[in-house]
């Protein structure tokens, strides 16, 4: 397993590298933001340990993480920071980091978290979901068609997020109910139909689209219209 350690304090970087190498990891060290982005683009790391405070105001760890995700690099990122304010942690996770550890940390915990991240793998995990020109940002709770923002209710939002996480797949009413409603919900699948109709009124009708299709006797499917017709 190959790991990239991004840390501006050479001593800290050397320690982390030594500790991880003793566990059998292959470790590369980057000391600044540009080097980190370059390394991560050149090599498919199994995990990246990223220090937030990189000592340059223009590109900190948040910026490195954002740039990596924008470049489509999905290596799991563990952020390390000497600051533990809640807003810092939230910001880190929302720019695409997968985990967060505050200095000073226990080395065993660092190892365990890295192992957990490696188990997840480098699946694409965009912070903003996109299907065609339809975008959904769960962190900001915002939906856009092209550049136009669409207001959705909580249930509509949850339903759309469900569709956008499985573009092109047919989702049964049961599956949708399981993902969007809790146990207290009475299993009336008609509710799904009502919400889907409302969703269509907001994301399709005003734009002359029909991306949310009914698949007779099965359920619904969100189609990426920019890709042409989806296979039946």
């Amino acid at each position, binding site marked *: 397993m190959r790991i990239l350690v991004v840390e501006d*304090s050479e001593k800290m970087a050397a320690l982390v590298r030594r500790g991880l190498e003793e566990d059998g990891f292959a470790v590369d060290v980057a000391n600044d933001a540009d080097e980190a982005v370059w390394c991560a683009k050149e090599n498919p790391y199994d995990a990246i340990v990223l220090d937030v405070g990189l000592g340059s105001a223009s590109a900190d760890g948040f910026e490195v993480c954002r740039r990596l995700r924008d470049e489509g690099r999905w290596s799991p990122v563990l952020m390390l920071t000497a600051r533990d304010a809640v807003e810092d942690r939230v910001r880190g996770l929302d720019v695409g980091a997968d985990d967060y550890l505050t*200095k000073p940390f226990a080395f065993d915990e660092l190892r365990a978290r890295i192992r957990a991240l490696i188990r997840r793998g480098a699946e694409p995990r965009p912070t903003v979901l996109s299907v065609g020109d339809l975008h959904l940002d769960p962190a900001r709770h915002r939906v856009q068609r092209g550049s136009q923002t669409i207001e959705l209710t909580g249930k509509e939002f949850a339903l759309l997020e469900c569709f956008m996480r499985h573009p092109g797949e047919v989702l049964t009413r049961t599956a949708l109910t399981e993902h969007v409603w809790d146990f207290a919900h009475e299993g009336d699948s008609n509710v799904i139909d009502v919400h889907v109709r409302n969703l269509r009124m907001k994301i399709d009708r005003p734009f002359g689209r029909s991306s949310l299709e009914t698949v007779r006797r099965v359920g619904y499917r969100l189609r990426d219209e920019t890709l042409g017709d989806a296979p039946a």
Partner: protein
Amino acid sequence: MLVFAVSTAVTLAAVGAFVYARTAADLLDTVDAGLRSRAAILVVDARANGPANVNIGTGLIEPDEAFAQIVDASGTVVRSNDIVSGAPMLSADAVGAVTEPTFFDRHIPGIDNITRLLVAPVRTGGRAAVIVGTSLQDRADQLLQLGLTLAIGIPIALVLLSLAGWLLAGAALRPVERMRREAAAISSSDPEGRLTLPPADDEITRLGATMNAMLDRIQASVERERRFVDDASHELRTPLSILKAELELALARPRSPGELTAALRSAAVETDHLVRLAEDLLVLARSHDGHLPVRGEDADLRELLEGIAVRHRSRTVAAGVNLSVEAPPAAVRVDVGRLRQATDDLLDNAVRHTPRGGQIDVTGTIVDGEIQLVVQDSGPGFSPEVLSRAFEPFVGTAGAYGDRGRSGLGLAIVRVIAEAHGGDVRAENFPAGGARVTLTVRDLG
């Protein structure tokens, strides 16, 4: 409010009493003037035609209001208005005693109210006299009228004034009450809150503006403190995490003595750094209370600076920088330890920013009992964003960890040492390049 009503009532009552008394006196004057002019006419008539032939009705418009009698030298009434014809209005003795025009107030039978009489002798020394009189009924009626008006008007005026005063005071104090409520709502969790100022430019607006300015200052200082604590915890965590990682790694598996020694050395370096940081933070914390103690010691300025230069020699030589010191041999009284610390920090800073082959000049002078230390280097100078805040804690140290032995508090400490000596410190850039820091301290002697 009660005070206002009572004082208004007293004032109104005094005004009412004054008006009443003044009117009473004026009315009497009017009556007297009328009597005098009538007496004068009758006297002239009596002198010309004899007391018995006086035309008693002369000049009377309403005979029943004013009346006259003429008495001759024997005291007999020789002429009289019908209304008082029955009896002399005044006893013969009283008339006889009058040598010049004199007023009397008498009850005359048949006349309502008191009658005002004027007795005027026809000739000086003679006993014949003219007596004119008039009832004071009109005056009494008018005074009664006035009294009634005042008695009704004053309480009404009092009520109206009190009401107006209450409304005016309420209107004037409403912004104060609103500002009080806003001030009560401002808390440390919402330091952005400010008082809404009334549009008028009056004392209340100015009070509000002053309080807002005070809130601005408090907020700025709270934010400065918060930033300081935030930065300080960040600066503490970095060496602590290195120390922790170093020790954990050393203990993670059996190590050779060589590995263990290396780990302990590294841990010792981090510990030194932490110690220095803790000491620096302590100095700053004490200075925040204004209790950084300075202890005056006698020293020689030149020896002091040369001693500091000697201690930095190995560093400047290693950095390839030339250090020169210039100061007069002068006896000074300063806190030697603190001044040495301040100069150390300034030299640290200068050495770090001066390229190989550069020059650092330390100059000590004494100006008006103040000791001035100037440290000038030939480096690139302070960057613009650092220059204005050079003496604030942790400015320009973001990510500078790795610079060994640097806490990021050096220049902040220089400033508090200067201030503890009753002096100050300034940073400037030379147009030709290079930074110049001037430290001024008062001689404690």
